């Protein structure tokens, strides 16, 4: 290409202490292209885009904007140049409406009235319909993302950086987003698109830059690659596919039964659970799909016993457990892995051996004698778990907070599987975990089920769900659809259930907001 690149980075290096998060990374973004930035978690994608957005300063290397070298001191300067960013985690206030949230990011003195009009115009123009006076608390995650995108577009950026934008969307919402991105690219805007979903990168992106361990691996055209070859480039070795067999659970005991489980919301913006019924037998994996924030964390807290429910609403191994605490449920053979690794599943400032004690002090008799802890035994368990689940660590017994996300996740999943539970409830088992660790965790969950345990997986990752689930249910606004065998489920059907269309035939579905937007475009 002969034209000047919109953005060029030359041998960008960023050191945090002794760690090189980015090591001489080069990147070229041409005007109007959709450029994918691929890599496992911890490969340095976020560090790279934070430098391009001015949120971090490079240790060495140069950034060129339209051929001119620039030093980005802060995001405000990057925005002035024409760089916009949509973050993965939204920074919106629930109790404010759409336009108020957008006004917060704009210079002081912006008039709300004219801004509201512009917000609606811009959002409509790009097929991202928003009502300026809607309260954010009432919006779906997809709609919240639209606010972030519109906020970014109002600054008329030439380069838009998007950090894993589809990880929070239903398949239908994601398709809508892709149309918007194509339209932006046709207008000559460039998009730097961070993702680990290979299919969508292949579908959408013109070029891809792949990072591994902070280093540039390759620039390539995703259309010329296969999903497997891209994965190999990201991970550095080929990823083992999960092996599974079909279980016969006809004679297996019911390990978990939910009977009309309802739970009032704990806070004004929390989701209530209503009339959830589910029955899971030993030997099978039941997945609960759904867009984040539809009651998954409430359901997990009810199952684990962190929140109290009527005694007969939750039956674990044929014993009414709704009133029982976490420790009592563990003693019945249940085990739990929450979504949040640090601060919920593990205490960051405590070593792994003490984090073993955290969930197993009640169910593993040898961990204490009388009042006293048996630290040696805890240490041995820590080593056993680390070896069985390939937990890589820098010290024999490091603090949980010092492990990488993937390794800590292997540890917290391994800690529970090592116990040999008869029921395992796990939330987002591979969220933010690299492909190698994810494959290991999924295989371990399947193996546990095939040994006779009931496994409930709450996940937003549909690829994962189709990989390991025997039956799939969908949670939406605190209601759970019937769990159906994986053969009877399709991406489209799950997508519709995620949007709240229970039991309706596809042709009778009322026009959703997404379709309205599509027609309006």
């Amino acid at each position, binding site marked *: 290409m002969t034209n000047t690149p919109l953005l060029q980075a030359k041998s960008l290096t960023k050191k945090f*202490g002794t760690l090189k998060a980015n090591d001489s990374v080069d990147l070229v973004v041409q005007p109007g292209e959709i450029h994918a930035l691929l890599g496992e978690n911890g490969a340095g994608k976020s560090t790279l885009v934070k430098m391009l957005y001015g949120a971090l300063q490079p240790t060495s290397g140069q950034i060129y904007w339209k051929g001119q070298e620039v030093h980005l001191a802060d995001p405000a300067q990057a925005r002035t140049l024409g760089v916009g960013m949509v973050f993965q985690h939204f920074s919106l206030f629930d109790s404010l409406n759409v336009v108020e949230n957008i006004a917060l990011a704009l210079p002081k003195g912006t008039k709300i009235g004219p801004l509201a009009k512009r917000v609606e115009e811009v959002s409509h123009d790009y097929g991202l319909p928003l009502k300026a006076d809607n309260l954010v608390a009432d919006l779906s995650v997809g709609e919240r993302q639209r606010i972030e995108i519109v906020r970014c577009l109002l600054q008329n950026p030439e380069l838009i950086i998007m950090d894993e934008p589809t990880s929070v969307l239903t398949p239908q919402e994601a398709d809508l987003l892709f149309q918007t991105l194509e339209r932006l690219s046709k207008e000559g805007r460039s998009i730097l698109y961070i993702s680990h979903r290979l299919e969508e990168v292949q579908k959408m992106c013109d070029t891809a830059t792949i990072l591994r361990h902070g280093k540039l691996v390759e620039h390539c055209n995703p259309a010329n690659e296969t999903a497997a070859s891209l994965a190999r480039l990201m991970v550095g070795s080929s990823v083992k596919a999960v092996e599974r067999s079909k279980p016969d659970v006809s004679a297996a005991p019911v390990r978990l039964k939910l009977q009309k489980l309802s739970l009032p919301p704990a806070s004004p913006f929390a989701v209530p659970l209503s009339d959830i019924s589910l029955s899971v037998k030993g030997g099978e994996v039941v997945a609960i799909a759904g867009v984040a924030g539809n009651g998954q964390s409430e359901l997990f807290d009810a199952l684990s*016993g962190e929140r109290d429910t009527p005694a007969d609403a939750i039956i674990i191994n044929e014993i009414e457990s709704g009133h029982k*605490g976490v420790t009592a449920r563990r003693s019945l053979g249940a085990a739990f892995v*929450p979504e949040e690794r640090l*601060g*919920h599943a*593990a205490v960051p400032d405590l070593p792994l051996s003490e984090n073993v004690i*955290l969930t197993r*002090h009640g169910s593993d008799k040898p961990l204490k004698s009388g009042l006293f*802890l048996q630290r040696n035994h805890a240490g041995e368990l820590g080593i056993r778990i680390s070896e069985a689940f390939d937990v890589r660590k820098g010290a024999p017994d490091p603090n949980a907070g010092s492990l990488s996300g993937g390794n800590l996740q292997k540890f917290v999943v391994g800690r529970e599987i090592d116990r040999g539970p008869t029921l395992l409830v796990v939330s987002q088992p591979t969220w933010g975990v690299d492909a190698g660790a994810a494959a290991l965790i999924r295989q371990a969950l399947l193996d546990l089920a095939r040994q006779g345990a009931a496994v409930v997986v709450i996940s937003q990752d549909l690829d994962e769900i189709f990989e390991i689930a025997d039956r799939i249910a969908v949670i939406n606004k605190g209601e759970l659809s019937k769990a159906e065998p994986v053969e009877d489920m399709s991406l489209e059907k799950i997508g519709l259930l995620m949007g709240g269309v229970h039991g309706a035939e596809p042709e009778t579905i009322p026009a959703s907001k997404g379709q309205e937007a599509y027609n309006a475009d």
Partner: protein
Amino acid sequence: MQIELQKRALPSSLMTWLSPALAITLTVLTGALMFGMLGFNPAQALYVYFIAPLLDSWSLQELVVKAAPLVLIGVGLSICYRSNNWNIGAEGQFTMGAILGSILPVVFYQWESPLTFPLMVALGALGGALFGAIPALLKNKFGANEILTSLMLTYVALLTLDYLVRGPWKNPEGFNFPESRLFSDAALAPSLIADSRMHIGALFAVIAVIAIFILFSRTLKGFEIRVLGATPRAGNFAGFSKERMILFAFMTSGALAGIAGIIEVAGPIGQLTPTISPGYGFTAIIVAFLGRLNPIGILFAGLLLALSYLGGEAAQIELGISEKTSKAFQGILLFYILACDTLIHYHVKFVSSKKKEAV
């Protein structure tokens, strides 16, 4: 030129222990400045304050006598603070312990037995624990802020004591002074060394230090305290009850403060008077933090703060400086500890303003 605080990636373990040393140094320097401004020779004043009390055996014994209640209360408070419960009312629990424990020698003064003193200690512990339970229950039931309730209850305890020694418990043979009966011999704390003021309280303090050290490092309860204090969500997931922990922390620290209280009146004082503590319950807060909420650290911090009381008395006698200076020293010390603790999580960076503009 501009000074910036930058967050460290990890808390500095070096600074965790260097910060108290730095705080003590800064306190001494500020003290020198304060004495200088009052017109005293700073070197001489500091000598009288901090060195002279360490040079004769009477003062050393007195140091132990004053350190004992500070350490007892301080290790108790470390349970509260580590579990994230802000008990500011140790002074009240100390006083309630002294009151309840004194029922035997004041109301049942004719009963003298070898059991008298042990029973008094048990009653003292009970008094402190029950009084500590009040803010805990208020926090559990109504979410009431324990800082406010425990502090306010302190004044309830102090005024109750004041009422008792001026009213129903006034010594009938005491010429109308606001004091209780003198305790009988059976009710007095045994001395550790014959004919000295060093009483059994010091032993209690050492036992408490060892017991709480084992509690923190070896037991499931200690683990529970640390987990619930650091990450309540993980503690809940572990099956630990926050409500029970609140009650446990307040009642244990209340009991230890109560023991300190009854030993103080059965030891150095020998009767109930309107004022039985020079603010031990509040000073122990400083002791707990200066000792890094670690029982062994608290032992040393207790000795240091006891020295500030002794120094205050010495400075008053020898130089005629108000003994209120000991309060000033304690306040300055707490101020510097809290300021220096910032360095555990942040490091100071000097940024030249020129460089900032150039970026």
